[in-house]
């Protein structure tokens, strides 16, 4: 008799989980669909000209017609984003380690870091074009400049914010400095570091597009400028969707890395918040 009750409870839990999983996908899709329908009806009802706000169906057509171009240009932008992002990790993490380990370095570099963030990096873009031309390099550099700051800040935060008892414990165990870092401090900082990495990937996307705006001859940002000049608003929207998917894709990649590296129950424990 009691086993029947347990089996029933187990069954109820499973069906609840199935419904949860379904609704996580279903409701957002439903919401998007409803918004698109409202958009379509709105443009129809008020007879809004296409160059102002094209109907979703027209945008969809434009996506279909330009699918090859959008994919090709997405690849260009994706490479810029990934290179800029990797550079910001390669510079940001060691910089954070140096700031954490050497107080004098931290005191000298921190004001400069903060000042560099107060300056809008979009404004530096023209200068980078002057220095490095119209190739891929200035886009990568702008993506890097915008993206690396959260990585530095979150890594330093993660390394310094630790229960003091954990450090006492490590010392009373006689753990070496290297072991204390790799066995206690670094794993403790991982959630916070990934918080920074997730913020940074979205910023790297912004950086690459800005670079293409200012001086590009390829990429989604460049095509946006072209479509804008041609008053091809459906294409503008098509490119915006392309950019959105690219951004989400990049973010999901970082989140996948986080799932592989950080234990599930620690995710989100650091400074960063779940964004999706």
């Amino acid at each position: 008799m009691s086993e029947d009750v347990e089996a029933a409870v187990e069954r109820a839990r499973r069906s609840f989980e199935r419904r949860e999983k379904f609704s996580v996908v279903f409701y957002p899709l439903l919401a998007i669909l409803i918004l698109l329908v409202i958009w379509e009806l709105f443009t129809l009802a008020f007879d809004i000209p296409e160059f102002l706000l094209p109907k979703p169906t027209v945008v969809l057509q434009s996506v279909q017609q330009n699918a090859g171009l959008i994919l090709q240009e997405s690849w260009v932008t994706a490479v810029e984003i990934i290179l800029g992002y990797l550079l910001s990790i390669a510079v940001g993490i060691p910089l954070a380690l140096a700031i954490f380990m050497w107080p004098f370095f931290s005191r000298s570099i921190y004001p400069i870091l903060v000042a560099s963030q107060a300056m809008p990096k979009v404004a530096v873009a023209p200068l980078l074009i002057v220095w490095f031309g119209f190739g891929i390099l200035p886009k990568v550099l702008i993506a890097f400049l915008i993206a690396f700051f959260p990585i530095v800040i979150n890594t330093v935060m993660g390394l310094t914010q630790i229960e003091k008892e954990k450090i006492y414990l490590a010392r009373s165990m006689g753990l070496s400095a290297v072991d204390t870092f790799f066995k206690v401090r670094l794993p403790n900082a991982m959630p916070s570091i990934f918080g920074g990495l997730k913020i940074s990937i979205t910023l790297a996307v912004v950086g690459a597009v800005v670079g293409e705006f200012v001086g590009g001859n390829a990429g989604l940002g460049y095509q946006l400028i072209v479509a804008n000049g041609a008053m091809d608003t459906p294409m503008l929207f098509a490119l915006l969707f392309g950019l959105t998917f690219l951004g989400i894709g990049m973010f999901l990649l970082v989140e996948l890395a986080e799932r592989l590296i950080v234990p599930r129950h620690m995710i989100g424990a650091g400074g960063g918040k779940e964004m999706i």
Partner: protein
Amino acid sequence: MTQAPTATGNAGAVYLDIDRITKVYSTPTGTVRALDDVTIRQRPGEFLSIVGPSGCGKSTLLMIAAGLSSPSSGSVTAAGKAITAPRTDIGIVFQSHVLLEWRTALGNVLLQAEAHRIEKGEADRRARALLKSVGLEGFEDKYPHELSGGMRQRVSICRALVHEPKHLLMDEPFGALDALTRDQMILDMQKICREREISVLLITHSVAEAVFLSDRVIVMTPRPGKIDRAIEIDLPRPRRLIDRDSPNFTRYTREILEMFLARGVLRESP
């Protein structure tokens, strides 16, 4: 039964020798004297508890005994050696479990073994035996967030014992637990101490806990922390929970309670 306020204990072997230490903290609003001329001699194998109100410097005392903090004046020696650096031959338990969230119960215990370079097979065997002895068999592969508060604290006690230290230092280890879990932990603690040769220094503000577990209880005054009195607990072992209501037991708890009332640590309205 009652001894001179210096708490030197009986003549004979001394394991931990805290000799006339004073600890003064400098703060922006002036200096604070946390400990004032404290002398404690712990015998080898002795279970020694320190009770006192919050802010009497008893946690500071434990930090100094562990070599994690140094006294402003006075000296500390353990087994004849002056303590100038963190002692690595001890087990330490804090009020919070301080488990590493990314390690399992077993992994947390093994961290201590890794630090002491104990051979893997031997470390694994010892860690599993310890976890089993505190009723955590079957929980070795659980992460801290999957364990209850009492289980977490048991894991941290196992971690403090896996390298078989001669000295166990505990700072209000059961303070965050519910009453029933506390009672079980106190029984577990008594069993653990009977099974091995170990000196224990327990910081607590639970009078009953201190009397139940200890060979000797040191009562401290409010800030600045001084030793008020040391009381030998002359009760047969093993002690049982039911003994707490016996006249012999309550004689001790009452004595300490009366000291707290006399010092104004506790105030009863007339």
